[in-house]
């Protein structure tokens, strides 16, 4: 179980997260929703120690998460990546092997096998030697999904994985998430818009600087909660 207690983050005096408390059960798919600028990316980054928090603790199975980084696969928002970087699809996924074998190792045959399997799972094996710039948005997102699979992590954090992706990518994504759930992984997905996929989730966390509601999707996305988070009443399903 992953337990977040009292997490508070300030950026140069501006409060981005305030006293956030929640816990994640393994084998559950958990979504974090909230408007742009709500602090969703900040939540993931502070849980991983990528931004410093003013207060709070993050524990996994009773020990600080920061000491168990090799168990985490983190997929940043697509806009954080330089898609002109000189690297091919295969070698992005190959970066995952460092988590398993230590940072100073060259890829072994076993690692190459793992990369191949991950790329097959997301249906990108045929494009393995392409430069990452020469992919569609959905394919780019799947490259990172493949990397997270090759990391063989226990905990998965995805930041806005459905922004501007095609239907095929969404389907592959959710079928893989389903498999990961069955393998009892801890899954946290951040999105400002879960659209018509809400019923895939076991738990939702509605956030805007602090947690406004958490629980089953139906319980969380009531008109009142929604209004409180987004500041306007709207169709729940197309936030």
């Amino acid at each position, binding site marked *: 179980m992953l337990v977040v207690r009292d997490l508070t983050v300030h950026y140069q005096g501006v409060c981005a997260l305030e006293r956030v408390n929640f816990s994640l059960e393994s084998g559950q798919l958990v979504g974090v929703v909230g408007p742009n600028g709500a602090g969703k990316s900040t939540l993931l980054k502070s849980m991983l120690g*990528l931004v410093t928090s003013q207060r709070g603790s993050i524990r996994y199975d009773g020990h600080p998460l920061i000491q168990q980084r090799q168990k985490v696969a*983190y997929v940043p928002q697509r806009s954080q990546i330089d898609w002109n970087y*000189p*690297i091919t699809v295969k*070698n992005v996924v190959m*970066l995952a092997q*460092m*988590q398993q074998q230590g*940072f100073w190792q060259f890829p072994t045959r076993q690692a190459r096998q793992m990369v191949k399997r991950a790329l097959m799972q997301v249906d990108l094996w045929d494009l393995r030697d392409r430069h990452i710039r020469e992919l569609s948005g959905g394919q780019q997102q799947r490259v990172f999904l493949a990397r997270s699979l090759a*990391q063989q992590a226990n905990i998965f954090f995805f930041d806005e994985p459905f922004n501007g992706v095609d239907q095929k990518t969404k389907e592959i994504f959710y079928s893989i998430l389903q498999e990961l759930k069955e393998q009892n992984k801890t899954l946290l997905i951040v999105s400002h818009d879960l659209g018509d996929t809400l019923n895939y989730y076991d738990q939702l966390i509605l956030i805007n600087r602090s947690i406004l509601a958490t629980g089953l999707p139906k319980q969380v996305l009531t008109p009142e909660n929604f209004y409180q988070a987004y500041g306007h009443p709207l169709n729940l399903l197309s936030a």
Partner: protein
Amino acid sequence: MDWLLEPLQFEFMRNAFGMAILLGILCAIVGSYLVVEQMSLMANVISHAILPGLSIAFFLGINLSIGALIAGVLSAFTVAWIRQNSPISVDAAMGLVLSSFLALGVMLIELLRTNRIDLNQLLFGDILSVQSQHIVQTFFITLAIAIIVIIFYQPLLYYTFDPLGAKASGLPVNWIYFGFITAVTLTIIASMQSVGVLLVIALLVGPASTAYLLVKELHWMMVGAGVLGVFSSIAGMYLSYYLDLPSGPAIVLVIFALFWVAFLFSPRQGLWRKIKALIKHQ
């Protein structure tokens, strides 16, 4: 072929030749990282910021390179520090640090009466005047950096491509940044003698940018930049010898000419290809 071999009977030409090869390799490795990190201007900051270090080292009578190394690394950290602790953008921070270190350097040269530092040599360099001790120094810098990059190729790739992911998976990103800055500063110190402070950025960024247009993997970028850098340095050197041109600018202009060829005719991203596609489309 005589015209190729004739200059090599002179020791200064042989030295220049050796230096050109070493610098071509060294700048290709370090410059490729600079280009993909989008930190080329940091090289510019460092190359100017070493001046106070040179002056103090000269005053204390210690190895000039040590003073330059300390000042260069310090300037890069000042930029990072301003950025992390204020809303000031990175380009403003770089402008600020570059000019204040430069001003401090000029001031110190005056105050410490170290004005026997040859500013002209410092600013423009001269590959035809390098001595064998510089070549030995550059050889060891190149060797050390090449070995480090080969051993740590994977983590460096991770860090430069996806710094957040790298940090999340526990890579010591602050140490990597420190190592990177040190490598850039050492490279600048090594190249200064040949092309000078003002043009060293061309050696770092030029061949790497040209290669960037031609390949799709970082290690091929380094290899390509190495070939281009060695070729440009040697070609510039010969131009300088036969046409009696200043060597630094000659090298830089060859680098730039090669960049234009790739920019216009690169099979993947060349301008010419795009224009042709456009015409065909209509």
